[in-house]
């Protein structure tokens, strides 16, 4: 599977290689890709950049808060966002992540949550039946249907639909991670998971400017203090090495570190687990590996998405895979050639549905 952007990137790195390749092998027939405009990191029109659920993972019937990061190149305030849970399952024949029926304003399968950039709602009671490992309610005369498959982390998600009332109206979707059981595990494995698993915690990101081998932290934009100084003042076309960082998470449980991690419980560490709190970095967690039929210990993948209203970012998204313990990821931003103001957003996601972000404001001055 090759995305257009990947192909474009590949071509860009191959340089003059391509003509020679194509002259030599018929296997490269998919190599001539069109030049399509736009990159994900270029914020040219207002749009949703991220959605966060707080807490990042909760059981059905729990109350969660949802907030959206809506950004506009000119800094305009976000338009009204109409939120709803989608309680319809997506048929196997439908692509995408949400049932198409929920991509209409007033479908009966929508459970409204309110309007705004932040809303609250109670996770539907039957989330684990509709979107989880529990068999769905049987239809009259038919046996119970097929359970939903988990994502690679073993998670299940309550679909959320956002209708952004802009011009034109657009849709965005999100999945709020719900705590459910596990399918196809033995009772012992299910019990082990219940004991050891800790709900996800949203990650947090900080940004620094790398120069002379040192990281210089950049102060994030504060919406409540619009008169605050910019994160930095740059010259037109200046190349800015950037580094996004997140907190290191303990691999070994340490009572008293404020984190109730894997294998910690109230019996072992009341101090950390009386009010369970996770790590804001790449958290270790346990999941059921269906292929190995075993409970395995894993670490979250961290993805960092970069957005800028002007200038050019080398990469649209960077991050760290499960096997990479580093807690930073680098990118380079080339400031715009024209003086003015530019805004930058950094969105961090873990692969268990957790999200966090920061925004930064720069002044470009000769």
């Amino acid at each position, binding site marked *: *599977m*090759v*995305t*257009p952007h*990947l192909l474009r*990137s*590949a071509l860009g790195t*191959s340089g003059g290689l391509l003509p*020679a*390749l*194509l002259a*030599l092998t*018929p*296997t*490269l*027939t*998919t190599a*001539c*890709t*069109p030049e*399509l*405009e736009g990159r*994900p990191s270029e914020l040219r029109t207002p749009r*949703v*950049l*991220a*959605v966060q659920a707080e807490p990042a993972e909760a059981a059905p019937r729990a109350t969660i808060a949802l907030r*959206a990061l809506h950004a506009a190149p000119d800094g305009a305030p976000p338009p009204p966002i109409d939120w709803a849970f989608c309680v319809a*399952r997506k*048929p*196997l*024949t439908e*692509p*995408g*992540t*949400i*049932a198409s029926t929920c991509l209409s304003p007033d479908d009966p399968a929508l459970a409204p949550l309110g309007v705004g950039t932040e809303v609250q709602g109670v996770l539907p009671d039957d989330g684990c039946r509709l979107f989880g490992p529990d068999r*769905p309610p049987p239809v009259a005369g*038919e*046996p119970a*249907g*097929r359970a939903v*498959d*988990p994502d690679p982390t073993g998670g299940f998600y309550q679909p959320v639909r956002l209708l952004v009332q802009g011009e034109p109206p657009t849709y965005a*979707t*999100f999945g709020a991670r719900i705590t459910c059981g596990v399918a*196809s595990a033995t*009772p012992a*494995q299910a019990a082990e998971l219940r004991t050891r698993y800790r709900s996800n915690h949203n990650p947090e990101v900080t940004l620094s400017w790398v120069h002379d081998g040192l990281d210089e932290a950049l102060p994030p934009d504060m919406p409540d203090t619009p008169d605050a100084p910019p994160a930095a003042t740059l010259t037109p076309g200046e190349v800015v090495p950037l580094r996004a960082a997140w907190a290191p998470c303990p691999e070994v449980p340490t009572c008293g570190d404020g984190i109730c991690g894997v294998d910690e419980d109230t019996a072992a560490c009341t101090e950390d687990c009386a009010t369970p709190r996770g790590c804001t970095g790449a958290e270790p967690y346990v999941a059921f590996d269906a*292929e190995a039929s075993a409970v395995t210990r894993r670490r979250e993948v*961290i*993805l960092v998405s970069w957005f800028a209203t002007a200038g050019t970012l080398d990469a649209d*998204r960077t*991050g*760290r*895979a499960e096997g*990479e313990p580093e807690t930073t990821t680098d*990118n380079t931003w080339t400031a715009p050639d024209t003086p003015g103001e530019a805004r930058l957003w950094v*969105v961090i996601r873990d692969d268990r*549905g957790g999200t966090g972000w920061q925004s930064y404001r720069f002044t470009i001055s000769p």
Partner: protein
Amino acid sequence: MNRASPALLGLVTAAAFAALASPGRAQPARTAQPAQSAPSTQPTQAPAAPQAGTPRLTRAPRLVQFVEAPYPEAEKTAGKAASVVLRVGIGVTGTVEQVEVVESAGATFDAAALDAVRQFVFEPAEIDGKPAAIRILYRYEFVLREEPPPPPAPAPAPDALAPDALTPGTPGTPGTPGAPGTPGGESASAGTAPPAGEQGDDLEIVVVAPPDRKQVVSSEIAADQGRRVAGTQGDVLKVVENLPGVGRAAVGSGQLVVWGAAPQDTRVYVDGVRVPLLYHYGGLRSVVHSDLVQAVELAPGGYGAPYGRGIGGLVSVQLRSMEPDGFHGAVAADLLDASAAVRASAGDRWRFAVAARRSHLDALLPAFTSADVGVLFPIPRYHDGQARASYALSQRASVELGGMISGDFIDRTVQSADPSQRKSESRSVTWNRVYLRYRHEAEDGAVVTVTPWGGTEETTLTNRFGGTPTALTVGSTVLGLRASYRGRPRPGLTTTLGLDAEAVSASLKRAGSITAPPREGDVRVFGQPPSDQINVDGWSAVLASAAPYAEADLALLGDRVHILPGLRFEPYVISGSRRTPREGDTPSIGYATADIVLEPRLAITADLSPRVRVKAAYGLYHQPPQPEDLSAVFGSPLLSTSSAHHFLAGALYRLTTTLSAEVTAFYATSSGLPARSPLPAPLLAEALVQDGRGRAYGVQLLVRKEIASGFFGWITYSLMRSERQDRPEARFRLFDQDQTHVLTAVATYEIGWGVEVGARLRVASGMPRTPVVGATYDAQRDLYQPIFGAQNAERIPAFVQLDARAAKRFTFGATELEVYLDVQNATNRGNPEELVYSYDYSEKGAITGLPILPSLGARFSW
């Protein structure tokens, strides 16, 4: 002065002659006359008293139209003479239906002789007073003469029809010494026919088996033509892509889409042994070395009872017959691969053939470009090999032990700073076949063939797109048996009785999204990441069936009408290891299902005149499910057979002996096709349901010029539509690989001096795609998801490509070197191959395929 002179060496007689004429193995054909001798046109022996009830030859075939072969320029310059012995199959109408080289004189002489003999016209032989097909040996002599030729005798043009060329008392009439009926040119003075008494010693008596009729609608290409077609890069079997009814495969896929059927619905056989693939990955090469191939036949539908288990078309590869003609071989290499093939005989009874090929593109490409080219683009690696050994048990019986191996591999890794865009791809297909074939031709012409065969197949797919895995491993053991008896119980009736059995035991593992890899009917766009909802399953399945079949060929109205009814009875047994998904440590529960089907087949051909033949056929076909679809998690264990009805009708018009036009209309319906469950919550172990239906209809036209005077080619045009209905209440939609128009024109011409040029033009409608009408932002995965319009409502722009080929042959004694340049996309047209979108689906573009691609190759043979 150069002169080509043929000599008819022997007649193939019916069983009545067999016993008396050949006390031992037929002698190699011997030239009974000086080089200038003309072809005999007479029966050479009076038949002995036939045994009661045994068919007897009442009239031997007689050559009424002789065509002179052009003397190969290089050989003429070198002053070389030669003779080529050919086995010529003569049909009931006297036309040459099959020619093969028995004793080679080198590729150029062979090709010239083959070209000429294919244009011969005979007065047909008669058995029991009725026209019958027979086979003869024929020596075509190339003789250099210094004296000027006599004035050419008036004769019809080479393409004239036989009846026009035959009049009583003209040269060539039995008993009339002289030149053949259409001597023309230099061969008019070729000499006289040898006295009958002398010819008697030259007889090779070969019992004629009842003709193994080709499918009613099929296209057959001989190997020596197929390898010379532009764009095939010397690969005989790649010519199948250019035959009528075949859609253009998606670039690099190597798939066969025949009459709108899914690629897996078309079965491929090599001498009756089913093989899983015709082409290596990417469609670069076929899996059988061209030097071992005699011909390839494509029957897009309506084929007879001997074949089943497929609801699409049928590809039959006929391996070259092994003759005791010494030691021959060839080595070849081009940018893609290198290959070698040898064939030899030991004594009178043993014959061997071995061929092997290995790709080197993966090694060459980094040398020309950069070492990491394989990281960016998948470069297939492949190998294949074939080995055959035959032993003549007697004149009439032989056994052959053969084997085939093939392997395809692709590995690619794409690195990225973005973990979700790191990709790895690893695919492989390895398979092998071993067969033992026993063949016996009885004195009455009946042929018994028994071929047990077996093999293994191993397919692996391991992809990772970011954190989402996709894995599918299939290991299969395949056993088969094909046994048949073909005989002529009475004049005008040929019957075939047989058994076609096959069993597949497969062990499978799969992991990943239920929609990856995608299947036909899935709505998606190229490059779209797979769903991140994943599962795993491991299961085994056995699919077995044994089909006794019977087919008759009833000749009526003086052999002008043939009616071929057939019946195939096939009970299928399907069993699996797991009826429901695994739950904890609960033991799995297996299952077994049975499906008994009866498949009637009927074909009718009628020769309305020597020029016009009409034909029609009907057949019912069934196909077992793919083992991959029998998963309790990803598919449905209780899938049964799919079925299809084929209806076709057509007409063939012979404009000349070498130029014909054929039009065929077809209509095929299929039902019971596995399709994804449309339910939001599919029933347990029913992710696939058997509600799919299909229909395909259209018309195809083939205008074909057989090889004559160094030129051959064809133009084929198919107008067709293939549709699917995924569930009963749904509307029919276009099949994912539907192509409304497919036009292919192929031409090859030998211009002399060993130089040959050729071209191929292909025009095809683009395949359907589902338009993207919008997009939503998926904040969970940070990507845009497309919103689709009506399924398959738009198409990739049309494909137009011109390929060219030039070859030059150099002869050194008994060896030959051929150097060729095959240029694909000679006009450097940017053909759209796939639609792609910008990251937010706001803009659409097309990936274009090959730019101009020259490929230089060489082949040395002896």
